[in-house]
């Protein structure tokens, strides 16, 4: 269970619905570990800075998180969290392991702005 202040996606259907209804979605899929928590926290701050982007997290170990774990973009990933950025329903960027706020900001600028 992810005990963060972000809204956690509970099912693959919820994720599908989210990316269908929102142009820009960012999902951080991980555990409550030292590489994941900093990214959740950055997402939490960025929720206010980028109101047009929907920021969520998802429990890496939930069966439904297979929709992220099995993405072709994540095929070679071996480090948590898997962070996936969607635009108009398509994956436009995916990263593995911890990211700094500057790295997340740069990705947003690159693919979501």
């Amino acid at each position, binding site marked *: 269970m992810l005990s963060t202040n972000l809204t956690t996606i509970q099912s693959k259907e919820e994720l599908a619905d989210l990316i269908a209804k929102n142009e820009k979605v960012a999902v951080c899929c991980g555990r409550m570990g*030292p*590489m994941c*928590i900093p990214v959740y*926290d950055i997402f*939490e701050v960025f929720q206010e800075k980028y109101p047009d982007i929907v920021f969520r997290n998802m429990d890496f170990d939930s069966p439904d998180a297979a929709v992220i774990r099995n993405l072709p973009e994540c095929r070679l*990933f*071996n480090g948590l969290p898997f962070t996936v950025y969607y635009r108009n329903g398509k994956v436009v960027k995916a990263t593995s392991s911890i990211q*700094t706020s*500057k790295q997340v900001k740069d990705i947003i600028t690159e693919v979501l702005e």
Partner: protein
Amino acid sequence: MQKNYDLIVIGAGPAGLAAAIYAARGSLSTLVVDESSAGGQVKTTHQVANYPGFIEPISGYELAGNMRKQAERYGAAFDLAIEITGLSLSGQQKFVEVDGEKIGAKNIILATGSSPRLLDAPGEQEFKGNGISYCATCDGDFYKGKDVVVVGGGNSAMEESLLLLQYVNSITVIHQFDVLQAEKVTADKMLANPKVSFLWSHEPRKFERVNDKMRVVAENLKTKEMVSIERDGVFVFIGLKPNTGLFEKTSLQLSEHGYLLTNDKMETNLPGVYAVGDVRAKQYRQITTAVSDGTIAALEIIRKG
């Protein structure tokens, strides 16, 4: 119009948050800025069992969150996940430039902490999370039944390796010395484990991907010969480094190991600039000592008016 504060705290770990709690309670207008989020390394600690006042262990995430809420309750302002684009610490009025916006302060507390040290070898950044990891708890199960390299021989390297042994088939430890620096009890467990082998007196110089494997090119520090080994993944645990990159263009005095030097009031060599927590040169780095540093700096600023 330019914002001005009595105090800007750079870094929102326990040292910075303790300073913010005391300063805000002491009626100083206080801004806490951090390029990440609030909580520092504590936030990512699974459980904290030795922080006074908690009979049962508390999660680091919760403890850090409580510290932030406590500071906010007393009026401290926060600007997190920002980029510090400029810093002026000399002169009576100090300036911190946050995402291009210049903010003034009479006093600055530097509480930037420390971060895991990187090898800075070619390929390290490229394969982070994709062959190179820094956390056994997080990434160990990606390597179930596989063969990995661990770089490092100190306490964290050996403790993380013992955890990794629950998942992996074998570990090859690459260490720059010919003995382990870890505590004897931990080192002995590793030395006695048949799944563990050692490449002593070597340092990685390059990481490459060869099909599904990671190739580590390591230098023998005694003979200067290069050796290559191929494994499924690499875990790097080579200690911590102080986060002082921000201060490179200032005249702050650093210790020989790169930590900020202060007196026992946490004053640096620059008037009105204080350093607290893990970024400060000191013997013990604990949550309690970080909180102590932050408290002393804030009280000193309040006392001086």
